[in-house]
């Protein structure tokens, strides 16, 4: 209500002031502009100038020559990437890993949130939440440090797995490519399961309790209530998060991957972001790495757009 009043007020004011010149109006609000312009300048420097620098992917960029005198080479960098001997491996690592992450890590927080909600003791509920949210705030270095320690050939986890008969003999688990994705996913679940469930717990807690009471009177049991009330009520939240996750199929958890980044794992760790890092920062091929980065951003935008469209059609929920 007050919003409507305010906007008509502003309109009146702006009508009156339109007669004044642009400069006079600007001068009258220079205190406000002095607060706004630094924000715009920051965005120009740290967001938009980097976007402008993307054009080096069409060049053979030379730091000494700069952007104006470097040689234009058209789409050569992209052609090289598409015919790169590691191209398909990079695509497989990116999509394969992300698809498994989506299949395993997406449903777990939903199940976890529902189970937490089913706990009867409020205090226990609170304790479980407090404990499981904690690892989210630890850095990947700390988590990585524990994993390097546990998964070495004499580490705690290796020892346990040998005792349980899962492993025949102690091996250096963290440096074994075939176990790497499993290790990544397990550690990410350990760190983020609780945190990722927050949004669902919030959605569940906003469900009208009358719905459950009515269902109880109608004789519905716990499982029926979960299936017919809880899950349908958080459908919108699930859809939005699914869209975001699909839009991120080209992305990666770089901070996590980088902790384990080393030559012996290149074949299983080379997602697009890591490969671009190696090409650009380690090998100094700035143009080539930028081309890889642009390929990723454009593809990701298309994915997000498509997922959003699909979701709008299927569930009526979308981001914008």
């Amino acid at each position, binding site marked *: 209500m007050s919003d409507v009043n305010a906007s008509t007020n502003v309109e009146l004011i702006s009508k009156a002031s339109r007669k004044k010149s642009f400069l006079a109006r600007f001068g009258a609000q220079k205190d406000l502009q002095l607060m706004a312009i630094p924000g715009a300048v920051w965005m120009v420097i740290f967001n938009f100038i980097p976007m402008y620098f993307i054009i080096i992917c069409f060049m053979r960029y030379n730091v000494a020559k700069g952007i104006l005198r470097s040689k234009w080479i058209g789409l050569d960098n992209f052609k090289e990437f598409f015919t790169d001997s590691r191209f398909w491996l990079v695509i497989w690592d990116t999509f394969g890993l992300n698809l498994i992450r989506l299949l395993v890590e997406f449903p777990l927080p939903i199940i976890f949130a529902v189970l937490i909600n089913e706990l009867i003791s409020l205090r226990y509920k609170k304790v479980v939440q407090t404990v499981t949210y904690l690892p989210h705030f630890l850095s990947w270095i700390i988590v990585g440090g524990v994993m390097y320690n546990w998964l070495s050939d004499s580490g705690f986890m290796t020892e346990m797995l040998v005792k349980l008969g899962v492993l025949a003999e102690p091996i250096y688990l963290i440096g074994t490519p075939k176990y790497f994705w499993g290790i990544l996913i397990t550690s990410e679940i350990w760190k983020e399961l609780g945190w990722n469930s927050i949004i669902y717990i919030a959605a569940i807690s906003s469900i009208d309790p009358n719905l459950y009471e009515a269902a109880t009177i109608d004789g519905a049991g716990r499982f029926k209530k979960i299936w017919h009330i809880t899950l349908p009520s958080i459908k919108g939240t699930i859809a939005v998060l699914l869209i975001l996750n699909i839009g991120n199929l080209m992305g990666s958890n770089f901070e996590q991957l980088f902790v384990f980044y080393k030559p012996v794992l290149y074949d299983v760790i080379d997602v697009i972001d890591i490969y671009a890092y190696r090409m650009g920062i380690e090998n100094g091929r700035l143009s080539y790495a930028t081309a890889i980065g642009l390929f990723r951003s454009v593809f990701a935008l298309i994915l997000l757009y498509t997922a959003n469209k699909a979701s709008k059609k299927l569930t009526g929920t979308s*981001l914008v």
Partner: protein
Amino acid sequence: MPKIKKSAGETSFDIFNILLMFIICFITLYPIWYVLIQSLNEGFDAAQGGIYWLPRKFTMDNYKEVFRNNDIIKAFVVSLFRTLIGTVFHVSFTAMVAYAFLKRELMGRKIYMSMGIVTMFFSGGLIPTFIVIKTLGLFDHFLVYVFPVMFSFFDLLIFQAFFRTIPEALEESAKMDGANHFMIFLKIIMPVSKAVVATIILFNGVFNWNDYFMGIIYINNSDLHPIQTYLYKMIVTSESSKTSLLAGGFSQSKFTSTSLQMATMIVTTVPIICVYPFLQKHFVKGMLLGSVKE
């Protein structure tokens, strides 16, 4: 709530659920506990293995060594400064811009906001950002921890969601008294926005404290590496060479590179554990604000 008789299936589900949650909590906490007991045990003794629940040969030597090691102290100081300065700049700058961008009379408001929205969906990426930071002379400079992370449009939206709930009458009276926008922001808006300011301070503080990658990509000078980057080097080098990191001069009878690493990990984590109760109070609120912003 009226007591309703439960079926046998439901009772066993309850028991299963309680146990499952207990196991999940145990799995969550045990790695942290493990690091703690290792850090409190003599290094060479710990290397024999078999320490699962409590330290076998209790000692504080690992911690004493951590606080005697100049490189580690230096890294802690860098972390402390970057977290303090980085967070203060981020929060005050983002809040100020958020306030200005919210004012309807702001000329060019649409352009400003559209710029921000573009940055949420598209970015230059790793290499172009790297080139810009290098060109600006921020490479190998402490300020690389401050300026490039001084602003976030996402945090701006969270601020704005809160600022919108502040009654306009509050500002009007100050305007009558002839206060300019900056004074209104400082004297009226900020004091009533403590909740959202605290939320962003905590989250940004944790981000700054935990970040290790900026130290790797933008800083060559190891004097400017924060503790997380130092730990990264510690973990990765001790893994690749399997040799002790310790430069000579100290007797190595009591600790190993692993036990020292464990103690450093604990010291690095303590600040997070200390702010965690405050974080917890705020984050659900913050997340909700974030999710209704659209």
